């Protein structure tokens, strides 16, 4: 069991983090204090042409991991700016790891032939995650992730997320049942501009992870969320599937429905991406720079409610979070299992960011 909330403004109007803090706080029962986290899109408009790396280090700023990672980054990227991420310990979270953020770009000469800039960044992230005592929390442009061990409202206070503004926010309240709770294991999980918050326990993990590893991904965290993020990344970025098709691969229609509709493209998708099917209960909000996707497992074994109020969309494990922020909404509904809700946002900011 976990709690998730997403707030998406399709006009890129930025709001501060206090709203989502409240929205996830009232889902306290859905977590157990072993993980909470937030992702914010539109966090660094002044640096939005650069990849924002949030890196977590075990120990403090003197940890040898810091210089090891920074040497590695210097060796293959231009680091334009780096700073400690400010934290505000309080009595419920008196201490935590050391966090630093970097704004960087790849050095073009280091890109191997046919490697895209994004492939290069993924490779960089994967490498850092294999280094001792270092973990990349987020790596996308204009995106920040703040997460750790604790209830989400306590994590919010630890990072003072009300000091950040964004046009899209997602939050997660964790009740870990598989992997033990630790700071890096909290959600959201991100790669590049894609973030996933997830409520569920996928039963196809072994199949999915092996398919991903065959395709060059390394599933180091051994969490469902990591696997879902990578599947989406592989399908949409590498194989260039549409969002709809990627969702179909993860939660496909029944064969008998495909037969009845005679839809040969869907049959083809399910045939060739059989091992990317995500089975078991899940409700996810998957965000990327262009919007959000809300998806349930085919059997709808986890709750997800969606709502729209003007240009703001909500997705939440429970309706209460939506009603708390917006007592009156234009539309509220519970998406059917396997039927994605796709929310697109404006390509660019209107006027000044």
């Amino acid at each position, binding site marked *: *069991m976990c709690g998730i909330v997403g707030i998406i403004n399709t006009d890129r109007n930025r709001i501060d983090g206090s709203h989502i803090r409240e929205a996830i706080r009232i889902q306290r029962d859905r977590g157990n204090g072993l993980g909470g986290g937030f992702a914010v899109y539109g966090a660094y408009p002044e640096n939005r042409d650069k990849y924002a790396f949030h890196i977590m280090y075990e120990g403090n700023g003197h940890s040898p991991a810091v210089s090891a990672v920074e040497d590695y980054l210097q060796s293959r990227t231009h680091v334009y700016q780096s700073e400690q991420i400010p934290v505000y310990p309080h009595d419920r979270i008196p201490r935590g790891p050391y966090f630093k953020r970097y704004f960087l770009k790849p050095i073009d000469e280091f890109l191997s032939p046919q490697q895209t800039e994004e492939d290069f960044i993924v490779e960089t992230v994967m490498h850092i995650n294999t280094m001792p005592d270092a973990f990349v929390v987020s790596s996308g442009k204009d995106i920040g992730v703040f997460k750790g061990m604790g209830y989400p409202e306590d994590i919010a206070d630890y990072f003072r997320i009300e000091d950040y503004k964004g046009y899209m926010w997602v939050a997660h309240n964790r009740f870990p*049942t*598989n992997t033990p709770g630790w700071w890096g294991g909290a959600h959201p999980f991100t790669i590049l501009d894609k973030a996933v918050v997830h409520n*569920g*326990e996928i*039963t*196809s*993990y*072994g*199949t*999915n*992870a*092996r398919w991903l*590893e*065959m*395709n060059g991904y390394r599933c180091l965290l051994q969490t469902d969320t990591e696997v879902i993020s990578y599947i989406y990344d592989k*399908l949409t970025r*590498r*194989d*260039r*599937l549409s969002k709809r*098709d990627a969702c179909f691969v993860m939660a*496909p229609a*029944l*064969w*008998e429905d495909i037969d009845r509709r005679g839809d040969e493209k869907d049959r*083809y*998708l399910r*045939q*060739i*991406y*059989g*091992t990317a*099917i*995500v*089975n*078991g*209960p899940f409700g996810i909000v998957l965000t990327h720079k262009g919007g959000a996707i809300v998806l349930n497992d*085919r*059997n709808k*074994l986890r709750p997800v409610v969606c709502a729209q109020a003007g240009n703001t969309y909500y997705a939440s494990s429970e309706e209460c979070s939506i009603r708390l922020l917006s007592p009156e909404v234009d539309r509220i509904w519970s998406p059917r299992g396997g039927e994605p809700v796709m929310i697109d946002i404006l390509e660019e900011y209107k006027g000044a960011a």
Partner: protein
Amino acid sequence: MNGMANNWKVIPPFHPAFDLDRCDYLNGCAICAKECSFGEISMEPVKGRNGEVRYRPRANLAACNSCQRCVKTCPQNAIHIEHQPMYTSHGYWTPEYASNIWRQAGAGGGVLLVGNGATGPQKRYFDHIMFDACQVTNPSIDPLREPMEIRRYLGRKPDRYGEEIGPQLKLDVPIMFGAMSFGAVNKRVQEAEARATQVSGTYWNTGEGGFYKDLRSYGENTIVQVASGRFGVSEDYLKSAAAVEIKIGQGAKPGIGGHLPGEKVLKAISETRMIPEGSDALSPAPHHDIYSIEDLRQLIYAIKEAMDYRVPVSVKIAAVHNVAPIVSGVARAGADIIAIDGFRGGTGATPLQIRQNTGIPIELAISAADTRLREEGIRDTVSLVASGGIMCSSDVLKAICLGADAVYVGTPVLVALGCGLCQRCFSGKCPYGITTNRPGLAERIDVDQATFALTNLLHAWGEEIKELMGSMGISAIEALRSNRDRLRGIGLNQEELRILEIKHAGA
């Protein structure tokens, strides 16, 4: 010489025992003696109270293989089989080894032949593997209430979206009937296989004995084999089927060819195999045009060309030590499907020493093959079919969790038709009429009833697989392929766990 004959005497360890109080011989019943095709039971004359002659059944203690035919056909349930093993006081020299030598030395038994799969004491890994199930943190799925999908498509898949997909076999249940040739089994058995697979939405395999003309209307559910003997292979033969399988090897006899004794080559078989009546049908050990992997590639593409790339080409190999690199090579040679047959796989006739001592278990082979193909990034270019020793539906699902896309079953087909596992398939005396074409025996198979039995088997296993999937919270079987995370080992050592890529129970 005569003085020594008894030294080599081997009394079979089984014999029928008759409860004469129940037996109906006084009314002239002699069903058991008629049903026993091995000649173990004779009717011996005895004098009745008034001096009249009655005939009552008697075990000859010469030919019983415990096939259970007499037990099952006795209307009075008056027969059971007794096991009376010979004993040796020597702990190392068991009677089995000693009597094999007596057969060879005294009776000139030569190469000892057997049927069915290997019987040795090697570990059955399936029994050391347990499934996971959902508890609390995720819900199990009730197959009675929720859709549960066990359909599979076999054939080459492209790496990514946009590229063309190869021809596929659609399996509504992930179980196919493995190769059993016309000659090894009779036409009635093959017809039942064909009809059951048509009803159940899966495939049967002709084996290497050609495709009998009367059965060609079932071509859409038929996989035809091209083996080293090339029996019955023609353009029509290839074009009559849904897929073509090149048989390189068989789990029960890796590295050797087939042998159908001339006595079994009757008219229909001679026509179908395209060989003279009464001649031995010997398939050579290797294909005489395949001495290496590049030769196999040529044959694969020769068949594909002949078939206009409309049907998948499968390659069947026996599970041997180097199975992983061999599978990789076969995949790269262009096979769309690779069938791997473990050493427990069945046979109609195989030298005892080969059956018992050659090859490796399918559980380890399929795991190693799947792992190797994934490491090389080519797993989706080929479908893997596991076979050889699968005895129940959970074996099927365990094989899938270890990396198979589907399975072949052979012995379960025979057992479903009544086979008592007496291992005398090569004798042509099958008392159930399965592995014989003899008039009077073959008719013991009723095609309608046999079709019903095989359809029931596929249905039952399919339903059991759905129950197992539901308990694991899986609603589509492709989500279990190579899902080693849902398996745990019991009583396996580190090396076995590593090869199976599973954790030990409790971990």
